[in-house]
């Protein structure tokens, strides 16, 4: 397997808080990684640095041979558009757009014709058993439905990497199970790399690899080269 994302010496502080204190990490193409660790340990910060949302204070992130931290904001935008998808805990759907319109946004941003984008979006809704929710606004969806729509939106444009930050964190266990299986199935089918933060060991069990963040550092077993 080839290394797709390479992080070296990532450091990031917010004022006096050191969120990341030197992280080295290799992620391979098609790998499913679960990121675990106590609250406030720096999991989200790590994810954001890997995805080019946050610029690390020092160290670098190389995605497919390109040094992300050296790119300007516009280029990082373009990289996110072309390669990454995101799912968060909640509140990520555009509230004024129907479920199906929400899903079309990444496609439209990549220049697809609207008619075609709608067709694709309906296809994804079908696959996730959400056809009935197509015309609903996010405010009218249940939490589980909203997360599945978010996953459809994250995957609709076939990103290389899906970053998920506690995607089931706001759901009850049954809904969480549903969302998670749906997401994993889609990711495995498409060979998408998944970097997923979770607090739930059962969720982590689905992953190819678990890494643990403590005080802004990876736990010993997860250091590059050791695994």
């Amino acid at each position: 397997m080839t290394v797709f994302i390479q992080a070296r010496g990532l450091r990031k502080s917010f004022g006096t808080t050191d969120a990341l204190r030197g992280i080295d990490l290799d992620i391979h193409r098609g790998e499913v990684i679960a990121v675990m660790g106590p609250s406030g340990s720096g999991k989200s910060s790590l994810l954001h640095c890997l995805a080019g949302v946050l610029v690390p204070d020092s160290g670098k992130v190389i995605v497919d041979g390109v040094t992300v931290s050296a790119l300007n904001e516009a280029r990082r935008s373009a990289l996110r558009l072309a390669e990454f998808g995101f799912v968060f805990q909640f509140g990520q759907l555009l509230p004024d757009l129907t479920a199906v319109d929400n899903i079309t946004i990444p496609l439209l941003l990549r220049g697809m014709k609207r008619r075609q984008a709608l067709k694709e979006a309906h296809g994804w809704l079908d696959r996730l058993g959400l056809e009935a929710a197509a015309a609903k606004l996010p405010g009218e969806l249940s939490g589980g439905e909203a997360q599945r729509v978010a996953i459809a939106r994250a995957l609709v444009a076939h990103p290389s990497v899906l970053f998920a930050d506690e995607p089931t964190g706001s759901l009850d266990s049954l809904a969480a199970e549903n969302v998670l299986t749906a997401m994993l199935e889609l990711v495995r089918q498409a060979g998408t790399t998944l970097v997923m933060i979770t607090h739930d060991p059962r969720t982590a069990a689905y992953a190819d690899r678990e890494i643990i963040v403590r005080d802004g550092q990876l736990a010993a077993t997860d250091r590059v080269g050791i695994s």
Partner: protein
Amino acid sequence: MNPSIVRLAVIGSRASWGRLLGITAGVAVGVTLALLLGGAYQGLDARDERSSWMSASGGYVADGDTSPRAVTGDMASLGTDRVLLARTTDRHEGARIGRFDVAALTTSSVTIPGITDLPQSGEYYASPALIDRIARVPADELGDRFGTLTGTISDAGLASPDSLVVVVGATANDLLERPTAQIVTDFTGLPYRANSSYQTVAIVGAIAVLFPVLLLVSIVTGLGAAARRERFATLRLIGATPRTVAAIAALETAATSLVGALIGVLMAALLGPVAALVPVDDGVFFAADLAVTPLTAALVVAVTVAASAATAGWRIRRAGIGPLGQTKQRQEKTPSMLRLLPLAGGLGMLIATTLAVLAGLPVPRVGTLIIIGFTITTVGLLVAGPYLTLIAGRIMARRSGKAAGIIAGNRIRRTPVATFRSVSGLVVAVFMVSVFAGAATTADQSAAPIVGPGSLAVTTLIQYLEPTLDAADPVGTDAERARLAATPGITGVVTVYTLDSGDSPDVGRLLLVAEAANGLGLGAVPPAAVVSVNSDVMTGAPAVFTPAEATDVAELTPSILLLGTDGSTAALERARTALQASTIFTTGWRPAVTRTDLADDRLQSMAASYATLAYLGIGVATLIAGLSLAIATVSAMIDRRRMLALLRLLGMNLAGLRRIIILEAAAPLLAVMALSIGLGFLVADLILVGLTDSGRSVGWPDARYLGALTASVVLALAAVAAAAGRLGKNTDLAAIRYE
């Protein structure tokens, strides 16, 4: 209420300090403008009151009156309770001078505001601005027209510090010659403002300017609503009742707007003297005219505080903030088509009134009906706005193929009321400007004097003579005319005659000696002793000379004296002065005029004289509306920064985000603006036809209108662009947490 809860709710963070500051500043600007506007209204009233004496009138002198109180050339016949008055409008370097020739006994009990004693023959009183003017130019250009200065007309008798007014003493004999002389017992006249047309304009203006002010206040008091709702939700979570939360909101807004209103009062007091320098209707204001009375100030402050507090409390209660805050977005009620009703009603009323007037039906109180119709139409436009915005949003959401268009379109259709509110100020301003520009096209038509070959030079003075009066010699003696001709700068003196009756082809034409006609340089003159020319030459039509039937001007009536000048201002003013100092002037209806002056007279219609005021009002309204739009856009952007940042996360670039913000403002603006322009002209047409009861209709608007329109669009775009320019900072991905 627990004070620590209030503190927690109000002084949350630096952002909430910014919000309080924004509200304070917005309210301050609003109150300042409202007070200045009120001051201007009151100031116009005051100046009108002071100058109302100028419209005093009385009976005309009856020819052959033999009653004991008949006014004769003998001053004593006036008694102490009557004076003879001849009112004329004189001119100097393009400015109009109100001239009042008065014949009164020294013992007269009649008084004119602003002067203590009425002037006697040879004396005059003048306003300070006129005295300055007289001192500035040589006496033979202005001062010699009046005699000896004996006093100044004080402010109590003047509309404005700029007013050019002169009260000139005369003998009864002098004035009896004048066809316009009146017997006046009392210098009180009807104030101009009682005029219902004026009231129409004033009410329309007040709506036009007050609306955006209220809008501004309403928008700033809603600043940071999203952040505030979150804080209130926290309060609810820890046990505050909805009532407590509403009360906190009201209290907070009351305190902030009180500070804002007090600052506003202070600013209005400081800016009053500056605002007084804006010339309206021929002159600047006395600073005292615009001074705000403590009562008005107290009233405005009280109303502002009470109204904004009440709305704030009501908004929070209506928002129905639960302990879980706004996890589910509150849906705006979709505006229904019923919202078009008031607009249709207002238009219907205007159309019905106009049609009734045109059909010759007796319509009582046309002016009032039109004001009501107009007001309903304006309000109707505001009520219909959200519905039209909804339609525009729907179309955009469906038709657009781009992410930005779809996002903006959907945002608009989900929140049409809020979206329209941010542009409604500009929509109303544009509606008003269109109505006004439409109405003004009538006033402006043929305002400029025609110039061209064959047209009478605009530098030629035209002195109309009074042929029906049997003055000894209306044209003046040869010596008089020689004196005029010898005045430096005067290039020729020509008498124009008319034939009053008979069936000669000369009737209705102007006749003059061929040699004199040649001197005018208006084109070919046929070889004849006396020639005739079309009478509209005086209004600029090209001259066409034909041989006259008459052969001797001695048999004709002298009607007009033409004084050619070399075109310099000094020569023109010297010519006017020379004419007024001669006996010729006393037989005329009014002082000599040029064609430029005549055109200027036509422009003195009400619409034109209040044009500055109207354009000023609309300018202020547009500015505030633009400001409101900018604030609303920025505040909406800040409230939605999480959403916008999310789009950046999805890979939308800043240009795309900017497009969303601009589309969200531009779509409703363009949709409703197009409507307000169309409606504006329709309404202008209806008002004109209704009020003037004639076939007058609106013409093509002039450059000023296009200028004003362009300015408001540019302003709107600038406002939105300025807001959009802050997008980068506000949606900085690093500053927003995604969980």
